[in-house]
């Protein structure tokens, strides 16, 4: 799988992506992250209604060998979570930008997205890794 970085998304240094739709953001992890982690066997997501602080640790992604923290790239109220990951965590490996999405957040402050990386900036980050 190529580490092509999709346009139209924003990125965090912790390898999450953000898709903005007005003040609602969908969050997942990037192809680079899923490839580094290996086979994903469990994802622990925040509860619907939870209040998240940008860049706080809000859940975990577990691969066969290891547990990794998820640092939310955006803060606000969780309005949806991807229930499908409970029975099919491998969706994160197969389709990290699509079926492998994690949760959606109603942003408490849209301006916070200025803290995130453009596709070009994220591409530079992973090519230097």
């Amino acid at each position, binding site marked *: 799988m190529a580490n092509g970085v999709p346009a139209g998304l924003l990125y965090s240094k912790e390898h999450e992506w953000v898709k903005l739709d007005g003040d609602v953001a969908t969050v997942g992890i990037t192809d680079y992250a899923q490839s580094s982690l*290996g*086979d994903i*066997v*469990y994802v*622990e997501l925040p509860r619907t209604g939870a209040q998240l602080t940008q860049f706080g640790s809000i859940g*975990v992604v*577990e691969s*066969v*060998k290891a*547990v990794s923290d998820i640092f939310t790239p955006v803060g606000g109220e969780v309005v949806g979570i991807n229930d499908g990951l*409970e*029975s099919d*965590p491998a969706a994160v490996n197969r389709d990290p930008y699509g079926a492998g999405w994690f949760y959606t957040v109603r942003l408490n402050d849209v301006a916070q997205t200025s803290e995130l990386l453009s596709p070009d900036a994220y591409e530079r980050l992973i090519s230097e890794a």
Partner: protein
Amino acid sequence: MTIDASGALRHTALYDAHLALGARMVPFGGFEMPVQYTSILREHEAVRKRAGLFDLSHMGQFALRGRDVGPWAETLTVNTVANMKPGQARYNVFTSESGGAHDDVIFYRLDDERWLLVVNASNAGKMWDVVTSARSGDVELANLHGERALIAIQGPRSVEFVQPLVDADVASLKYYACTETRVRGVRDAVLIARTGYTGEDGFELFLPAGDATAVWDALLADNRARGLEACGLGARDVLRLEAGMPLYGHELTEDITPLQAGIAWAVKFDKPAFVGKDALLAQRDAGDYPRIVGLTMQGRVPARAGYAVFAGGERAGEIRSGSFAPALDANVATALVDARAAAEGTELDVEVRGARHRARVVPMPFYKRAKA
């Protein structure tokens, strides 16, 4: 984690082969070893359904020679050794005076006076000290670490993949038997044993390090199209856990005895004397020691080494190994728990990030291969 490849870590003879296959390398037992080539789940499936190829050349290999090897080894270990016949392999544990484990090992008897002792990579230095400091009688020791390679092929199609390369009739080699044979392209005799650490049929090949790449490449060239895959230590750990096999440092340690580890079958109390015998007898007779049990988690959250285990709301032990087990589509673990919490069927709780998750004590192995 940064990997220092500048000299602090050793390489096996197959290091370049692993890189050529795209392996992700990690430090293990003082060596840089492949943890995975493609994916742990894919490599696990290869072993359970077809066969996998493993480089185990990081493990310690000691040549033992002399008339007294058997009786001498019996004084340092829990299992019998002297009654092993040429062509037999046997699992054993070296113990301390307190009954704790220095290492779990396999002895291979090649002939009346020639033996091979294989020890865990992480214990190679310690075990060389143990055997050399205890050496007595007609026993010569040689440390072959680095001179000899160890390639394992494990899986239901192992016989089919190995036979064309090897003179001996491998199909008729019994489980835990070994023999010296000729391998295509290798000048010296190679020891082949029907041993392994996955719960599947398979073979281990002990050969000169200089011949390892040729044999590794030949096995893959001949069989990759038929489904043989290179497999790393990540898959190896899942396979051995499913098969209920202890991993030193987890289910056996200097503080976890063979009785506690659930391998009392390997402890032969009718041997006249061995290091740790008195301590193990006392432990056996007291009977109330904490012990390793197998757990199946009820949900999708994996248990991991170090997580606390509770019985009836009270702390009862800790997880020693844990993983998602693809062969069972469930999360399994081993735990060291108080005797009161160890009965099969006991419901326990495992604390994962502050929340308690239900698990049940189940017999091991978690997975058994189908009878051929």
